[in-house]
């Protein structure tokens, strides 16, 4: 039995996983239109390389990262998830808490599902890690656990000794990883092997599964080889958090402003591992993902393999939409966010859609004053002081909030979950973080404006100087010409005189 550690705090919310975890993953249906936003991950958005009217094939790149080599950038290309015609490149609503629009490529599908040329690296172990890593970057793979961090950034072989494949899936309602581990354990294992190779051969490779998924655990155990450990971890929210899982498995804490690779650990989600497997072994870029559609608002809650860009209403209809949907949440109930409507595409970070019926939603509690009970500090997995953060965020005292390490908060929602006064603590933290980031952006903009103004004044002065110099030079030339003309005239007169004298002498 491998030794496990524990992390501070955490909660055990009702799971609601049985709603959707018992049915097999349904295959994707082809929607009439696919909407592909340019930004589906954390980092720089991609730039379109197709035009309206272009025919595209499944797996063809429609938006490339802004640069030659994607593997160097915090960006990944976006691929067409089915074959068809590009009918628009325009702003469309994207799944974001703001409900705002962003640039998207809209593809009208032709129903043929014709693949573009696929290049697989079947014998990847004979290739250099960089080659495989570039291949993964080109396949558009990002962390599919929900955050969407470009995977190739976490695949740099820089002294990594432990690779963790995260199958914890701690949030209530979500079961896409559970189903995936049950259905495709071999793919995940091969994916892990590829990741291990790219990382230059990690010494230890662990697949962690929460103990509320015994079937997934068994499936992985059956598929596992001796180089990989499959470990059951307690069901304890937020076990699936990168830092929490590392702490439970290794006993190491990732320091503030540090990333796991700095202590030799890399964590990838199980579905990311499968996407790596598909990219390397089958040459398929990331064009689909498993999405949990659950909640009382649909007749058949289940997991579906959805083509990226499929409109959400299309997927919800596939599960049997019930009348009277009250709320749509993307992600889990703890960390997800509500969407204003369902005319938005499924993107790389859409792991779950909770379609809530009327009976499912509790009437929102009125936030009462903080009674300083300290329950929030007891459950904070980062050991922060949520109460202090709350006071400072509420008072808009952002400097103080940062002094209390606001940016170490992972928005897990444990504090708000246990708050007896029902204070929306996470909303306060999100607000404060957004304000701080915005003022940082403004500061950067001001710095650029200062430089540009400096150059503007410098340019004006330089131009003035040049103009003066030019005028002076022209003046000098004119003077010179004038003198030369006078001299020439004098010469001419002299010559004339000499000539006339000579003629008079005759």
């Amino acid at each position: 039995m491998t030794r496990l550690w524990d992390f501070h705090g955490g909660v055990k919310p009702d799971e609601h996983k049985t709603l959707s975890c018992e049915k097999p993953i349904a295959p994707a249906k082809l929607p009439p239109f696919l909407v592909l936003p340019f930004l589906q991950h954390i980092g720089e958005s991609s730039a379109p390389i197709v035009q309206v009217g272009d025919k595209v094939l499944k797996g063809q790149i429609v938006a490339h990262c802004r640069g030659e080599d994607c593997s160097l950038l915090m960006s990944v290309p976006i691929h067409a998830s089915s074959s068809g015609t590009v009918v628009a490149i325009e702003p469309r609503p994207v799944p974001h808490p703001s409900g705002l629009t962003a640039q998207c490529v809209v593809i009208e599908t032709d129903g043929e599902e014709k693949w573009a040329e696929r290049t697989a690296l079947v014998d990847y172990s004979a290739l250099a890690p960089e080659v495989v890593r570039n291949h993964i970057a080109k396949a558009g793979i990002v962390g599919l656990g929900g955050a969407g961090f470009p995977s190739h950034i976490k695949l740099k072989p820089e002294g990594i000794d432990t690779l963790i494949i995260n199958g914890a899936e701690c949030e209530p309602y979500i079961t896409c990883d559970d189903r995936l581990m049950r259905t495709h354990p071999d793919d995940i294992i091969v994916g892990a092997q590829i990741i291990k190779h790219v990382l230059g051969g990690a010494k230890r490779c662990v697949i962690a599964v929460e103990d509320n998924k015994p079937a997934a655990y068994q499936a992985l155990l059956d598929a596992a080889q001796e180089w990989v450990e499959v470990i059951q971890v307690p069901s304890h929210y937020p076990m699936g958090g990168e830092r929490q899982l590392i702490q439970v498995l290794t006993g190491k804490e990732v320091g503030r402003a540090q990333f796991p690779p700095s202590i030799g650990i890399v964590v990838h989600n199980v579905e990311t591992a499968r996407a790596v497997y598909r990219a390397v072994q089958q040459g398929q870029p990331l064009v689909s993902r498993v999405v949990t559609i659950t909640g009382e608002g649909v007749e058949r809650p289940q997991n579906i393999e959805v083509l990226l860009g499929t409109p959400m209403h299309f997927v919800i209809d596939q599960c049997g939409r019930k009348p009277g949907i009250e709320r749509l949440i993307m992600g889990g109930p703890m960390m997800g966010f509500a969407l204003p409507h369902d005319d938005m595409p499924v993107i790389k970070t859409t792991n779950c859609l909770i379609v809530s019926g009327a009976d499912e939603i509790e009437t929102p509690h009125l936030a009462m004053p903080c009674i300083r009970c300290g329950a929030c500090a007891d459950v904070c997995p980062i050991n922060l002081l949520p109460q202090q953060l709350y006071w400072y965020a509420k008072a808009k005292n952002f400097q103080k909030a940062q002094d209390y390490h606001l940016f170490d908060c992972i928005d897990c929602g444990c504090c708000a979950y246990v708050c007896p006064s029902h204070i929306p603590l996470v909303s306060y933290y999100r607000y404060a973080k957004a304000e701080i980031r915005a003022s940082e952006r403004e500061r950067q903009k001001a710095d650029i404006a200062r430089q540009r103004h400096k150059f503007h004044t410098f340019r004006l002065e330089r131009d003035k100087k040049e103009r003066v110099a030019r005028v002076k030079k022209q003046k000098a030339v004119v003077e010179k010409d004038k003198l030369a003309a006078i001299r020439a005239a004098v010469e001419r007169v002299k010559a004339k005189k000499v000539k006339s004298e000579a003629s008079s002498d005759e």
Partner: protein
Amino acid sequence: MIVAIAVLGGLALIFGLLLGYAGVRFKVEGDPVVDQIDALLPQQQCGKCGYPGCRPYAEGIVKGEADINQCSPGGKVGMLALAALLDREPKPLSSEHGVEQAQMLAEIDELNCIGCTLCIQACPVDAILGAPKHMHTVIAQECTGCELCVAPCPVDCIKMVPIPEAVKTWKWPYPGVQSTPEYSPCDN
């Protein structure tokens, strides 16, 4: 007595030389307080404060000519930051130097632009692109919203528009305000 005078005199000389050397070696170019104030100003270079730019205003504050409440683009937050830096009493923004408002963006009506280059000359951050008798346009990314280009335009084709909200710059609202609109199914 003589020894004491010699020793003290010698010490005075040594320390005097040391101080003199340090004065030359660690000389600070310019006034660092001006830099600190300048770093807090929003760098719109709009001149609403009565000075021809942010740095001259910073110099004005240091000289005691200008007050800390004259920068309307910086707003109340900027004034408070200046008050904290200079350890002065915060005061409301002076009304004669403009009103605080969200940053805007200059937009040229390109159909009516006659290509006179007057706005290009007025722009303090070279954010307008164009050539004589050719259409001009604003580089939105670089525009600081100073409004200096609006007045010189002989055909009144420049107007200030609000900066469009984008996913990247969107901010979570203060809790208690409805964050997302109510769920409203579309007719698909």
